[in-house]
């Protein structure tokens, strides 16, 4: 028997078999319980307001109007032309708005990332301020600007460019313009944040090796900015799919998008099963897109929110 083991046995004999371990274990468990207690009010609220109603709506969507278990609520999406039209409109708007946000947002984020810090933070105010202005206020502004007797039309008529007012609001183009304006910061902010992390040394190395500015951008900067761009694109696209306020106010009743359809089916026709089914599919599509993104890039799309 070595001296060490003897010492250990002696110790154990004095303080009881792993009393220390036991106490530590108890302490860790108590600590976990305390932390859970701190979390529980928040978790309870989220559970009650988000998980329970969604679960309930999902349950409802599984029954037809007669109360029988059936896939009728989901089958109608493929059968009724009006639903198909809603989906097509929604995806059309989402693709066009996302595309417009990329075209406008990429140069802006690129410029912000290249400016000296002081100038960039001043310019950033112009991105963040609209971000924190109510969606209603901004939709109202676009209604004022785009409607028949609005600013654009009266300016163009005064200038003699057109004689008849263009119909810009209360139709598809109004929805696209308004939504692009509202969602643009959601693309610019994550993109800018990721562009800021691109090491300038890489670019300088490229130029040292003889690449002209255009080649440096194309071969070094642009590929490195793609993850940021992808996260912005996913966020904008997902938000487009469930967007309600702007299409409801600027669509003139002609542009029926997914969320509006949900509101109509539940509020106007009180068809909870059908509305719930729409909601379930919207949620599944949203989660699938976010999950796909996370899987492809290993990043969390919600990261943008912390940059608000």
């Amino acid at each position: 028997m070595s001296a060490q083991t003897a010492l250990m046995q002696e110790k154990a004999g004095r303080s009881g078999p792993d009393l220390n371990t036991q106490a530590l274990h108890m302490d860790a468990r108590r600590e976990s319980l305390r932390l859970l207690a701190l979390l529980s009010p928040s978790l309870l609220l989220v559970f009650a307001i988000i998980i329970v109603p969604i679960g309930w709506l999902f349950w409802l969507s599984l029954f037809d109007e007669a109360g029988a278990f059936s896939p009728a609520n989901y089958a109608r999406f493929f059968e009724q032309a009006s639903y198909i039209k809603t989906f097509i409109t929604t995806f059309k708007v989402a693709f066009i708005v996302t595309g417009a946000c990329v075209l406008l947002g990429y140069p802006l984020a690129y410029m912000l990332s290249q400016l000296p810090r002081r100038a960039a933070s001043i310019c950033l105010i112009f991105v963040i301020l609209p971000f924190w202005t109510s969606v209603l206020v901004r939709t109202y502004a676009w209604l004022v600007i785009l409607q028949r007797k609005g600013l654009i039309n009266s300016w163009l008529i005064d200038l003699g460019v057109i004689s008849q007012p263009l119909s810009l609001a209360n139709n598809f183009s109004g929805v696209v313009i308004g939504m692009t304006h509202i969602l643009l910061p959601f693309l610019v902010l994550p993109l800018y944040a990721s562009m800021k992390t691109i090491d300038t040394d890489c670019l300088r190395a490229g130029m040292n090796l003889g690449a002209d500015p255009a080649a440096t951008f194309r071969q070094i900067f642009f590929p490195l900015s793609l993850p940021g761009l992808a996260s912005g694109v996913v966020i904008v696209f997902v938000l487009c799919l469930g967007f309600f306020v702007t299409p409801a106010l600027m669509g003139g009743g002609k542009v029926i998008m997914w969320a509006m359809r949900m509101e109509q089916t539940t509020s106007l026709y009180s068809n909870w099963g059908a509305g719930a089914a729409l909601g379930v599919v919207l949620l599944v599509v949203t989660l699938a897109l976010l999950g796909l993104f996370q899987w492809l890039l290993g990043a969390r799309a919600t990261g943008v929110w912390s940059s608000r």
Partner: protein
Amino acid sequence: MSEDVGLPISHRQRLWLYCLGGLVLLFLIAPSIIIVIMSFSDSTLLQFPPQQWSLRWYQTYFGSLEWRDATIVSVKVAVMTVLVATPLGTAAAYAINRGTLRFNGTINALLTASLIVPVILIGIGTFFLYARIGLNNTLTGLVIAHTVQALPLVVLTVLSGLRSYDMNQERVARSLGAGRVAAFWQVTMPQIRFSIVSGALFAFITSFDEVVVSLFISGGETTTLTRRMFNALRDQIDPTIAAISTCLIVLSVVLLSVAQIFGRRH
């Protein structure tokens, strides 16, 4: 970082980029500026720039009982949301920051769920739930729903404050005999208070500007300002809304500036 050792590209070569970026910035900010200017117009027509100036739309706003009631409801709900969401969010952020819980990932996902779930689904779901338990058209119902939407913002803001704080300081305080609460209150709290204030401001504006869920669950005497605005916009374009919008824009500017100042001091 790279300011003094920038790329060998002159500002002149970048002129096109500045022009393009400037135009996009203009696109972002112009609508708000136009609305602020139009709100001081004397005309019921939408002329820009206005021919004559007046405060008549502000008088209509502040003189109208309906608009005033709606504003009071929104302020009340926003203040109560701040009072509920800030302590809850801070407590949750504190627990998450410890990172010792087994289901940290799931907890994170749950707390940020209201950012991911389409807001229209939250609106319909909450309405459906509230109809069963009689919380539709009540202040309590609004505060609960808005708290859920404000929580992730508070959690994320406070969490970013906690990440730059060394939790060992709290351990030292406790080893010196301070109780758990005292250690948090006297050591941790003062060092993350700017994050907490920012989180509270974000909670306020989230609640005050919230439209979709309020559309479903508010009504009658608890009609929020945004719900009333939404309904007014559905009917016609009333210049009073320009005055209200200007007030909302000013509120955003003030809250953001305060958050910015606090953030810088942090």
